[in-house]
Every structure is written in structure tokens, then in C-alpha cells.
């Protein structure tokens, strides 16, 4: 995972260096920024989260919510980033928590994080069809007048066979893109990232160029051809109002609070490069934290900007109405993604195909990004002697193929369960965020304690920064814990978020993995002891002489 290269005689930093062997790592800061950007990619937030957020908080101000999410994002970015600078090794939360707090707590964290990762991967397997291929086919079929395509698009979203086929194919693609080493992986990642971004930019460009009256006219013309309804735009709004949807609600700060919690489902994960901390170039510098912060804040700014654009181009009342079930049934597309509305405004089948295809790339991309957590955690645990060394096998390109295979197979198992028991799966999926927040809060806890438990490491690192005499990493850690507590509170408090209906199940899927992680540590330690190996030695820091 690292490459050897010569150390220059006088380094860029002004070092006087001699001829000796040296190491550089494979992931440059730009690619690191993209890794951190992808989990909260604005295209995905706009397509899947924005309208849900508006629905759960009628009267809530999405712009204010986005603004309030910024410090939450920064708290996690700097908690993870500053710790990763101190301990620049792959493994993410497992590495940070086990090294700073205690290995047993590291296992609690990694079990929670992995549970969330596997549930998320399974969701991505479904979403590539339900939020990608199916809306693509239905939208293109409607706009281009291909009834067969509309029918097939609706069919694949409910067909177990097609869901399995496309979902497993996507897992295979996400795995294949990692097989040939970092250089190729990052190339593919960056190309895919720009494809997904281009889909949003194209729709945004359309929203800038075309007026709202143009959209209304095109939409009515499009709908009339299918439904016969003369003013479907106004009809959509009035139908939604009849159904009780507040299309122009008065501002309510109270209703903004659940929107914050919904935005948090995509906006607070811009720390993802921590999982490949040992592979980042300049990992010990403040660039590590800053790329995480930028990866979190830039998407939020873009979401705010594009939301304003689309509200302006389509009408916020219409968007709320369309999302609230007001669209005539014959032209309804699941989730009414803005790609569909943009394509109607442009009135081009080609445009629809283009933006949807560019967007669909997001799903294998996010699956690959998500799998970094599982592969690197497996790798780190094997490195520590907890898992068999054989799982650390890498191929000739340096890809940890066995760990990757294990991660994707586990994801596939959860995915297959999701396909055959969709109701049960979606009940559990909503807990993914909450269980992940346990791991994230533990990293926050590690951040709070790091300057005190690991003072030498802290002082010797570029993370030694303070505000009013308080270490920045401790402040960020405390902010991360508070954010986790807030989101947990929101999901327990607001019925419309769908998590508090079955508290027994909720705690089983959130506290359960934490308990399992702790038990796993105790079991492994006991087993290894019978073999003459004291696993605690692996982690214990030697007191310097």
C-alpha cells in the first residue's frame, strides 16, 4: 500500500535530507477530498434526501437546517481528521478508538460501524434499481413515449430476480474497481465522481437557463399528452393540498429540527478517508482534516445552492406537492427526482438518458466507498493478530482482495435478505444511522481524550492546535458527541422519522452490535490466551525508557 521513493536532498518543506530509503503513500490530497465528498454528494442528497426532509418537516427551513448541519459536519471532520493525523494508519474508527481509548472499545466501535456499513451496502444494492434504473426507465419511457420501457422500469423495482441481478452486479463492479491497485481505483473513482457531479451540474444549468414559466408550460404539455389534463402543474399542487400536504407552510423552527436530522443521514460522513489513513499522502499534515472539512461543507453549500435553483425553476410548492403524491398517477415516478423534472423541462429523451445514466454511477461508487470501511477494518484487525493473517493477502497490485471479498460477500448476504424481506429490511435500515453514530461518538470520545491519554503523540503531531487553550481535537470530539446525541434524540422524538415505532428492535440493532463487539474482544483474548498469546500485548504501548 505504500511505495518507496527517494528522499530529496533539500525537501520542499526545507528539510535537509540524506540519501536513504523512504516512503510515500498512494492517495493524494485531491483524491482524498473526493473520497470524503462522495458520502454526502449533493446529487444524492438532492435526489433522495431533500424531498424527504421537506416532507418530515413541513414549515421547516431547509436552508437554515443546512446551515446548522455545518458545525456538525465540521465536528466529525475535525474529530476524525485530527486523530487520523496523529495516527495515520488504515482502519478508521477501529484504529483511532483502540489506540487512544482501549482495544475493547475499538471493537465496540468497529462492530457498530460495520453493521451500519453492511446495511448501507445492502440498501445501495436495492437503490441502484429502485432509485436509479427504475426511475431512468420510467422517466425515459414517459418522456420518449416508450410504454414498454415504463412498464419494464416499474417491473424491475419489484422483481426479486432483477433486484438480485442488478444489485449483485453492482457489488461485483464495486469490487472489480478495487482489484487493480490504488492508481486505477482512484482514476475510476474520480471519473465516476465527475460523472455524478455532471448530472447535477447539467440539471442546475438547465434551471439557470430556463424560466419557471417555461417549465410550467413544458410540464403541462408533457402531462396533457399522457393524462389529457390541461393544467397538470396546478392540478398537482391542488391534489397534494387535498391530501393534506402543506405546499407553502409557514416557517417553523420546530419543524426545522427533524430536517437537520434527515440531512445528517448524508452530511456528516465526510471523514471517509480515515479508513485509508495509512495510504494517504501527507497524512500527518493538517491537509487530512481540511480535506474532510471541505468534503463535508462544500456539498452542503452546493445542496443549498441547487435547492434554491430548483425551487426557483420548478416552484417550491410544486416540488413539495409532487413529492407528496400530487402528481397524476400516469406520470408519477418514484421520488420524483429532479432529473425527471429537469428532463421534462428540456423536453429531450437524450437529456433524460444522459442525466440518469450519469447519476446511476453514484451507486457502485458509494458502494466502493462504503466497502473501504469494512476492508480496512478487517485488514487492521488481522494486522493486530485478531483475525487470521491470511485475510491480509493482497494481489500483485496491492489490493487486499480477500478482505474485499469478505466485505462484499457479507454485504451480499444482507442484500439478499433485503430483497426477500424488504419490509423487515427497511425497518432495520433506519437504524443504520443510529448504530453508526455510536461508533462516531466513540471517535469523538477518543478525540476528547487524546491530548490527555496520548500527550506525546498529540504534542508531536500537526493536530496540536487549541482554541482558548482547549485542544481543538477535544472540542471537535465534544461536538461530535453532542451531534450524535442530538441526532439520536431527533430520531427517537419525531415519529415521522420512522425509528421509534419499535424500541426493542431499535436497541437490538444499535446496542446489540456494541455488546457483540465487546464480547468478541473478550472471546478472542481468552482464546488467544489458551494458545499462549496475550492479545493485549498487541495494543499496549511500551513505556519509553
Amino acid at each position: 500500500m505504500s511505495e518507496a521513493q527517494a528522499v530529496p536532498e533539500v525537501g520542499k518543506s526545507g528539510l535537509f535530507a540524506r540519501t536513504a530509503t523512504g516512503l510515500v503513500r498512494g492517495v493524494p490530497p485531491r483524491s482524498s477530498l473526493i473520497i470524503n465528498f462522495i458520502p454526502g454528494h449533493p446529487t444524492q442528497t438532492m435526489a433522495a434526501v431533500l424531498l424527504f426532509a421537506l416532507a418530515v418537516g413541513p414549515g421547516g427551513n431547509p436552508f437554515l437546517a443546512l446551515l446548522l448541519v455545518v458545525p456538525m459536519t465540521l465536528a466529525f471532520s475535525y474529530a476524525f481528521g485530527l486523530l487520523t493525523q496523529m495516527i495515520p494508519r488504515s482502519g478508521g474508527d477501529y484504529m483511532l478508538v483502540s489506540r487512544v481509548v482501549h482495544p475493547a472499545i475499538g471493537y465496540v466501535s468497529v462492530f457498530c460501524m460495520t453493521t451500519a456499513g453492511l446495511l448501507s451496502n445492502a440498501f445501495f444494492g436495492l437503490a441502484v434499481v429502485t432509485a436509479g434504473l427504475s426511475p431512468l426507465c420510467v422517466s425515459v419511457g414517459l418522456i420518449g413515449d416508450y410504454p414498454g420501457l415504463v412498464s419494464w422500469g416499474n417491473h424491475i423495482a419489484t422483481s426479486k430476480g432483477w433486484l438480485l441481478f442488478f444489485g449483485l452486479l453492482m457489488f461485483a463492479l464495486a469490487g472489480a474497481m478495487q482489484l487493480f491497485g490504488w492508481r486505477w481505483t482512484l482514476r475510476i473513482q474520480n471519473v465516476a465522481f465527475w460523472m455524478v457531479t455532471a448530472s447535477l451540474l447539467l440539471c442546475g444549468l438547465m434551471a439557470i437557463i430556463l424560466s419557471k414559466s417555461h417549465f410550467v408550460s413544458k410540464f403541462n404539455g408533457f402531462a396533457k399528452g399522457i393524462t389529457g389534463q390541461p393544467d397538470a402543474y396546478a392540478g398537482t399542487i391542488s391534489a397534494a393540498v387535498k391530501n393534506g400536504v402543506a405546499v407553502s407552510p409557514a416557517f417553523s423552527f420546530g419543524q426545522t429540527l427533524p430536517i437537520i436530522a434527515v440531512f445528517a443521514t448524508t452530511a456528516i460522513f465526510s471523514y471517509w478517508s480515515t479508513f485509508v489513513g495509512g495510504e494517504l499522502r501527507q497524512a500527518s499534515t493538517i491537509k487530512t482534516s481540511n480535506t474532510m472539512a471541505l468534503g463535508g461543507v462544500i456539498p452542503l453549500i452546493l445542496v443549498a445552492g441547487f435547492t434554491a435553483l430548483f425551487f426557483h425553476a420548478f416552484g417550491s410548492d410544486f416540488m413539495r406537492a409532487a413529492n407528496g403524491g400530487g402528481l397524476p398517477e400516469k406520470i408519477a415516478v418514484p421520488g420524483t427526482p429532479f432529473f425527471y423534472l429537469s428532463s421534462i423541462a428540456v423536453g429531450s429523451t437524450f437529456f433524460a438518458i444522459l442525466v440518469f445514466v450519469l447519476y446511476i454511477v453514484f451507486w457502485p461508487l458509494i458502494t466502493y466507498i462504503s466497502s473501504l470501511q469494512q476492508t480496512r477494518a478487517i485488514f487492521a484487525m488481522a494486522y493486530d493478530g485478531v483475525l487470521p493473517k491470511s485475510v491480509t493477502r493482497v494481489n500483485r497490485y496491492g489490493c487486499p482482495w480477500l478482505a474485499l471479498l469478505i466485505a462484499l460477500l457479507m454485504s451480499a448476504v444482507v442484500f439478499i435478505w433485503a430483497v426477500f424481506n424488504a419490509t423487515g429490511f427497511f425497518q432495520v435500515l433506519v437504524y443504520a444511522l443510529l448504530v453508526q453514530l455510536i461508533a462516531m461518538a466513540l471517535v469523538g470520545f477518543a478525540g476528547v481524550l487524546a491530548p490527555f491519554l496520548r500527550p506525546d503523540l498529540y504534542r508531536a503531531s500537526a493536530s496540536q492546535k487549541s482554541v482558548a487553550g482547549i485542544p481543538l481535537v477535544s472540542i471537535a470530539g465534544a461536538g461530535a458527541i453532542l451531534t450524535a446525541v442530538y441526532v439520536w434524540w431527533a430520531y427517537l422524538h419525531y415519529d415521522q422519522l420512522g425509528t421509534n415505532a419499535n424500541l426493542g428492535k431499535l436497541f437490538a440493532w444499535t446496542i446489540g452490535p456494541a455488546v457483540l463487539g465487546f464480547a468478541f474482544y473478550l472471546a478472542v483474548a481468552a482464546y488467544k490466551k489458551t494458545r499462549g498469546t496475550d492479545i493485549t500485548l498487541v495494543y499496549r504501548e511500551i513505556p519509553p525508557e
Partner: protein
Amino acid sequence: MLLGRRHRRSEEPAIAETMALYYASDVHGSERCWRKFLGAGRFYGVRALIMGGDLTGKAIVPIESCDDGSFETTFIGETRTGRTPEELDELVEAIRFNGMYPWLAPAPEIARLRDDATAREALLEETMLAELQRWIDLADERMPGHGIDVFVMPGNDDPWACDAVLEAATHVTACDDRVTMVGPHEMISCGYANPTPWHTPRELDEDALYARIKGLADQLEDPATAIFNLHVPPYDSGLDTANEMNADLTLKYVGGQPHPIPVGSHAVRQIIEEVQPLVALHGHIHESRGEVRIGRTLAINTGSEYNSGHIHGAVVTLAGPEVRKHQLVIG
């Protein structure tokens, strides 16, 4: 039955006593790792510490001093400034923690050395030796009281002048290029590497390296219980994987990507296969930490992440002609 047991015990060789050792390598100037290396003896409860080479750091961090007592430097991508002695001490400690050497000088002196390769080289060597001397003095002072033997050899990256510092030590045993006794086990040590793209101080072609190690191995009385302390790992053992490089020190790409290849020593592999010692301890390739069996020999590369403040090592317990147990550790 009881008699039988007694009989077998009486036939066991005298070397059957159990002995634990701690091995680490490639600390590259990290004072923190060196101090942990010395602390590992009592921490893991071992009788011997073995340092497998590459002791010295790779770079000096010039700290610009000003007349008013303030200072400024660029370190880990950041400009660090300060005024007080305490702030300077903290910076110096941080630089040493990361395996580099601090050097405080006025701006004109720093600028002069930037343009003078010879003076820069002299400063590097002088600084390296002074730091190494501090390390060895620390070991000589502390370790006798703990009853822990310390064996140290230079590696391919270490300049020749290091040898004199090691040889002059009182408690630390300079073990390079000789047979030493680690408890009841004989140990041969060789800090040389096969040729590297950097042309570091201690490199030999494979034939010469083989001859050098073979000469040492021939002096062993009981090779089956011996320890091989060889800086470079055996070729194609999984302990020696690194990316291939061109002669101009750029990475070699195959199919558009870096090309991992085995870069260990054929000579080391051959001598291990021929002599089949009890255990072979290696460093050199930081990213190839692991263990492997070559015939009956357990070969270990502990790897290195010296600039994280963690020392990578191995605790190995030997009992006569067998390795009773072994564990890779990060301390």
C-alpha cells in the same frame, strides 16, 4: 512412567531453557521508538533486545533562530514559531518523535547550507552521530540495572561512522558481522542489504552478501538453534514486497500502475534454506511486515512505522531447537 519422564529430561540438551527476546528494526532516528525499544525488555519480560538496523534518521529540520530569541521552522507541512525555551523544547521533542533531527541556526547559516551539499552532509553525519551517542549512552546507563542484554547493529541506511559509536558502548553489544550469544543461542548478524535504488552505505551484490553471511554461519556450533539477525529479508518470501523503481528513482509502472515485486535478497534466502536456523529476524522493507516459514526456519519481518511513535516488533520465545511462541506487537 515417572522414571521415563526423568530419563527423557536428562537427555534434553542444555539449551532447552526457555528464553524470550524482543526484536525491532528500522527506527530511523525516532527517539520515541528507541526509548520504547529499551523499555520493551521489562514490558514484555524478555531477556534480550535485538535492534536489527537502520537506526539513524533521514533528515534534519532546520529551525531558524532570531536575535530576539524567537524561532521559526516548517514542520509536517506547517510553520511553527515560538519564543520561549519551553516552546523550543516542545518543538525539538516533536521533531525527534517523528524521526528527524532538529538543528537550530540563524537564517544566514541555514541558507548557506542549503547551497552547500558538502557542508550539509557533514552536518547530517555530525548530528546523527551525536544523537546515536545519546541513545547508546542511555542504554548503557539504564539497561545493566535491568539485567537485559541489548544487541544493536547498523542497517544499510546507517553511515559507517555509526560503527565506532556502537563498538565503544559498554553494555550494548555491537553484533554486526560476528557471532554473539543471546542467552544460550548463537546469533549471527549482518546489516548489509542487496543493492537498492538509493545506493545506501551498506550494500553488497548477492554473491558478496552470500559469502559474508556464509562466513558467519560457518562459525556456528549449533545452526539448528541459531538466530539469524539479517537486516534484509529473504527474496520472494512475502516479507520483501515493495514497488519496483526505475534507475532514476521514479516508480516503475506496469499497465499504468505501480508494480509490487519481491526485493529481498537471494543470498539471504539461499543461506536460510541451506543452514535452516531456528529463527531469522529481518527489517528493511517497512511495508512488508509478516512472518513465514522457510523450511523449519521461522522468518519474521517486523516492518516499521517509526514516525507514528509506535515501534513494531516481535516477541519470540525460544526453547532449545524450537520456537515456543512468537507474536508481532506494536508498542
